[in-house]
Each structure stands twice: as structure tokens, then as C-alpha cells.
């Protein structure tokens, strides 16, 4: 799963299982930085934002996918830099699911 938000204000998005207090995914926005190269370089501009996903899977090194019952309460929080006003902002979450027992 992954959040969706915009530069330059997006700082972090979190999604929680509100019933258990477990955090399901926590994503911090990554912006272009000098240590990655010139800030004039494509995709590393000062306010170019990259939003890493939370990757779940059964392979080694991946976090085991969450399986949640329907009805589980969810809380989604977006933290943002509101030093200045920003319009047209978004705070979405999106992803792919699988229903246990679904056929191949």
C-alpha cells in the first residue's frame, strides 16, 4: 500500500489499525537532496517528491502482509508542512488486496 500526497508540503502519512493500535504503514516523503546529486538533475529537483510504498509479501525480507477482518477500524493521518498555504493537496491511500481463498 502507499499514500498519495503532493510536494512541497507532504511530510508523512500513516495508516493505523485503530482497534489494536498497530501501525500498518508509515511513509515519509523523500525530496531531492544535494547528497543525491545536483538539485538541477531531473527527479532530484529541490521539491521533487518520491513516495516510497510499503511492500508486503511472502518473500524473504518483506513484511508479512496484513490480513484484517472487515469492520476493522482504520485511522489515516497525514502530516504536512503548513508554514504556507497550499491548494489542491491530497491525502489518499491506495493499494492492492487479495481475498484469502481466492483461486489462482
Amino acid at each position, binding site marked *: *500500500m502507499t499514500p498519495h500526497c503532493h*510536494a512541497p508540503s507532504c511530510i508523512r502519512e500513516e495508516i493505523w489499525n485503530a482497534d489494536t493500535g498497530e501501525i500498518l504503514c508509515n511513509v515519509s516523503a523523500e525530496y531531492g537532496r544535494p547528497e543525491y546529486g545536483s538539485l538541477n538533475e531531473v527527479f532530484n529537483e529541490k521539491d521533487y*517528491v518520491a513516495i516510497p510504498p510499503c511492500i508486503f509479501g*511472502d518473500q524473504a525480507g518483506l513484511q508479512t*502482509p496484513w490480513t484484517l477482518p472487515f*469492520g476493522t477500524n482504520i485511522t489515516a493521518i497525514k502530516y504536512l508542512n*503548513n508554514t504556507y498555504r497550499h491548494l489542491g493537496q491530497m*491525502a489518499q491511500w*491506495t493499494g492492492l488486496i487479495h481475498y484469502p481463498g481466492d483461486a489462482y
Partner: protein
Amino acid sequence: MTLCAGPGDVLSPSVTVVSNTVTGSERTVILSRPVAALTADHYAIPTSPGGINVIVAVGNTHDLAYHAHRTGAQLNLLPSKVPSCICEPQSTTYLTYMNTTTSKFAVNCVDEPRSDMLRHGDTTGRELPNAACHMQTYNGGLQCCAHKNFLTDLEQDSLIPNKTDTYFLKWRFVLATCCFSCLQCQSHCVCFALRYYFQEYVPANPANNTPASHLSLYHWVFLIDDAVNDYEEDNAHYGQASMGRITAHLNVDTMGIENRPTEATNVTFLVRDNLCFSSDWLCTAAKSLRAANFMWHARS
């Protein structure tokens, strides 16, 4: 006259015929009944001004049968001893671009607990709705973003140069070490969904030569508000460094889950792509999305 037809229980009589007269080709029937419901199964007539939806029908046989004519109507209850408006005022708001195009502005932010938008929506924690919830406070966003629209003031139109913006899209592929059913390939392959990462949510089983499954994946998405996609981020003291927040509360059933099997009781969450925008200028974002969709179709 039948007030309600169809299967059900016959109600005990609650209506009294006050008069039944015929003048020419018109019959006038005046009925009376108490305001309060006779039983829990009867309708209680509202005691405050408002509308009552009714259906009426008439038959043309002696036996109970499907009605010959029927229609729907609304009875409007008005105060009889104080002045009142006959028509409820309604307002509709529109956005006009360069005095040439007009689009309806229809936004209904959902109340808490679903979202902060309506009551604590300006991202500062103050008791204020988000400015995007009302046309009167809307400063800009998706509602303004349409083909050939520039986010400039009317008098700035002549200042817009006739140039074409160049923007870049960055795609990241994760190569899966398996063959998907949609492509016959020998080793690494990238399958149909350009925008998706893949992972083995059902591991391969060498014992019975079952491949890892990448099928039966369904998309979900939810917004900060139940219906409003974009919002505005405000501050209590403009220019003073601050971090705001905005929150949504929902449950797994209302997260935009698609194609839920009736027998399913839970769901497993996997992964999807992320989209990267080079600025928060909304039209740039929208162009990126349109281009992304185009590329997806072009390569699928």
C-alpha cells in the same frame, strides 16, 4: 382510493370520511385522521413544516387488483398561524473560467468521524472547515483544473507565453522471477500492470509445481474525505514554521474495497505503485496522471 398497495398486513382503520361529494365529473373526498399514529404500524403525521412523500392510485374494478392509474406527489405542510416561505431556498454555485466556461461547484464534505474536513479541516487543529468544502472559501484546486485552464488571474491572460511545459515521469519496475499467465516468458518478465509492484502473496510450491500467484489482486483507494479529493492546507500564522495534520476515520469495509466475495470475512493488504509529482501545482499533477494513463494503455 388506496393509500398503499402490495403485500403486507391490513391496518386497523384510522381514517374517517368527512364528506364525499360529486360535482359534474369531479368527486371530492375529504378525509380526517389524528396526527398521532394509531399504532406503531401507522404513519405519524409530522407536526413541523416540511414535505410528505405520498403515492396515490385508483382502481377500476370491484375486486382488489392492480391499480388503473397511479402517481406520486408531495404534501407540503406549512405553518397556519405564522408567515413562512412557500418554497425552500436553494443555492447552486458555479465556477467560471475567463468568462467563457461555467462548471457547477458541488462539494459536500462529510462530517466527523469520517474526516476532519468539515469541522477541523484547515490542518491547524482549529474548529474550521477546510476551505475546499465551500465555494465561498475555495481558493483553488481540482475544481479549477480543466483542459486549457491556467491558474492565473483574468488580467494576466495576455502575459501567458505561448510555450509548452516539459515534465518528466519516473517509473520503477520490479522484476518478478516468475512467469505470469498473461505473458509467456522464459525468465524475468514485466507483466501487464506497468504501475504495479508485484510480490508473491501466494508463494510458489515446488512440491506440486504450483507457481506463485499474482492474480486476483484488487485495487482499493480512499480519500481524506468520503467524496472530496483535494483539499487546502492553511496555517494559523502565515510564514511561521508549523506542521499540520489532517485525519480520516473509516473501516476496512469502507476503504474502497472492490469485488468483495460474499463469503469473504477478511482481506490481505499488498502493495501498489506510488506517483511522484515535481510540484504541488495541481495541473502538473493532473497532466502526469493523464500521461500515466496514456502510457499504461499504450504499453498494455
